[in-house]
């Protein structure tokens, strides 16, 4: 049986291509530095910024983030693949995540996932041909009291029934948050860093 060897010696990133991360994204990442004792600690928010800007985190993006944070690229790779929230391949404009933990499962998440698959015409981990939606599952969305729950981009939807799926998909605002996002991910650029509440500051 053929068992091919994965080549890890050759680079997959194109070193001659123009940089992926814009100066704005880099500036945003750098604005996180003062919150933490080490630059490494800014990795998670930095990856969120990159994912928001590019849609997903490619090899090249990992490498560039590593350069900005001055940490080894292998550690960025390590972290990106650990968290299911980070995507390593292109995805649609909106990502639908169906919870697959035990509470949601008991409350009908399995049937719900099938309904999404049917309506979108794609399987788990896939993206619709028009690039509008990607479908995924995740272990627990911490909404067991609203099971079965679904996440569309960053907006949570609780007690979703299979019948709700068409309406949910038809709603253009199904991913709009009612409350502003944490300041951790959206620092206001140019503002004096010392006057802003420091999200990452240690207590005590």
């Amino acid at each position: 049986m053929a068992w091919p060897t994965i080549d890890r010696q050759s680079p997959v990133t194109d070193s001659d291509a123009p940089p992926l991360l814009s100066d704005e994204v880099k500036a945003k990442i750098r604005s996180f530095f003062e919150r933490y004792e080490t630059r490494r600690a800014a990795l998670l928010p930095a990856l969120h910024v990159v994912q928001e800007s590019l849609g997903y985190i490619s090899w090249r993006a990992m490498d560039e983030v590593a350069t900005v944070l001055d940490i080894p690229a292998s550690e960025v790779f390590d972290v990106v693949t650990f968290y299911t929230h980070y995507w390593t391949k292109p995805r649609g404009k909106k990502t639908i995540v169906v919870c697959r933990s035990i509470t949601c499962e008991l409350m009908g998440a399995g049937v719900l996932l099938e309904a999404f698959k049917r309506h979108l015409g794609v399987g788990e981990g896939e993206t619709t041909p028009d690039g509008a939606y990607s479908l995924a599952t995740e272990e627990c969305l911490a909404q067991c009291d609203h099971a079965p729950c679904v996440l569309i981009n960053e907006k949570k939807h609780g007690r979703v029934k299979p019948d709700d799926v068409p309406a949910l998909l038809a709603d253009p605002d199904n991913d709009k948050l009612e409350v502003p996002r944490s300041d951790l991910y959206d620092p206001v650029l140019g503002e004096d860093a010392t006057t802003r509440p420091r999200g990452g500051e240690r207590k005590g």
Partner: protein
Amino acid sequence: MPKIEIDGIEVECRDGITVLQAALEAGWSVPHYCYHPGLSVVASCRLCLMEMQMPSPKGGGMEWSSKLVPSCQVPVKNGLVVRFASDQVKRNQRRVMEFLLLNHPLDCPVCDQAGECLLQDYSYEFGDPTSRMRDEKHKSPKKDIGPRTLLYSDRCVLCTRCVRFTREITGTHDLCVTHRGSENEIDVFPGKALDNPLQGNVVDLCPVGALLDKDFLFKQRVWFLKRTKSICPGCSTGCAVSVDSNEGVVYRLKPRYNPGVNDWWMCDEGRFGWKYMHDANRITAPVIRRGGVTGTPPWDSVPEIVDARLRAVIEAHGPDKVAVVLSPMMACEEAWLLVRFLRSVASEATLVLGPVPIQGQLQMFPVGSTGDAVRFTIRREKCPNRRGVETIIAETGGPTLSFEVFCEQATAGAFAAAWIVGGYPEPWVTKDFAKAVGQLEFVVAQDLFPNEVTEVATLVLPACGFAQREGSFMNFGGRIQPFDRAIAPPDGAKGDGQYLYELAGFTGLYSGRAVREMMAQEIHLFSMVKEAPPMPVHQH
């Protein structure tokens, strides 16, 4: 020294170690994958779990804890009571082994690690003979992670020793653990291959057959290999190594634990630097040139020829016209025997230390560390015994010259005969030196490979590689470390020590230890030999 109780037996142990280390040192056989004394403790493999006595939550004395505790993470403390010989501990070991083997391909017949694999050893000693896994095995890919190393992910037990090595010892952070849970894999960032100067150690660290050395891959089953204690001649650090050989052929070098010198590690330069010993171009028999005729004298006649020719030179030119160029590649014993012999014939013979190869930069690891943070050093001096030979020259006394001055004076005709020792794996004869040698009437060249000196020498004697000799090297810090002979010299050649021993007037077989004892009578320093401690029962 704290005293702890393991399985009802009182054990006195070193301060500041963990219960696992104490148990291993006291002779217990405790399975462990993630624990390595040279790396940080992660307590992730769950194989070394033990039962420990703790204060009873109900009050009133101690009782066995209901949960198992990782012995690799518990520091020893006076009065600590633990046990490994209990049903609960043994059950845990069996279950963990079963989990680790769930997706293991069981391809031992084609795996290089077979025979020195801790999965095999622990399965036999602590595991169940059968698996209850009925589902199809998950097959992780094979990865080409570096120019010298392959990763068979399907055999990996995720102990992360290799990852911690690249983070804590080399500081190069090449390896990482990707994905999560049952999908965990060891990997490198594509294009940033595992290519640091110490990377070979990850193969030694790997307790299973996941990380394999491309150089050794499918070359030899490990149970055929004979393991000999040696010292790496690659630089003046003097790492303790094992030479693994079979039927007179070296297959690989492995580091030996040697605290304060190389600890558990060695560099790639040394690890793969032995190939010259099996080079087809090596000089393997003595050569004599008499009036344009070249012949191979029998070994028996060599002492006679040397003696007669040297005496002729001394008679014609005087006893101060003889020189010996010693090599920093020689063992202390060989240098001592040669000096002893030459001074017995020519009492005024000049002692010269040959060129000391200096290459590259001092490399300290972790990269960028200094002072106490340094865990491993590769030195610039690419020879094992400059200090040893220098000591012998200094202690012997009499006329000595530096190599440069010797070249100048010999070119000017100050010498008539010389014994020149090479033994360098790389070409070493400079133009000046070749010119100086050209002025001499009688030259004995002792070397590994043909060069400008062996081309013109009256008598050429084959030198041997370090694994074909025995003796001792004095490292950069003055530590005298003995090494044993792993393989025989090539057919037709004789060990350097052996023919120098015979020249010096001794009969019988040369032994490094016996010569060292004689040397110690003259030079007290040579009684202070430092051997690396023996390997523990369960190799790390």
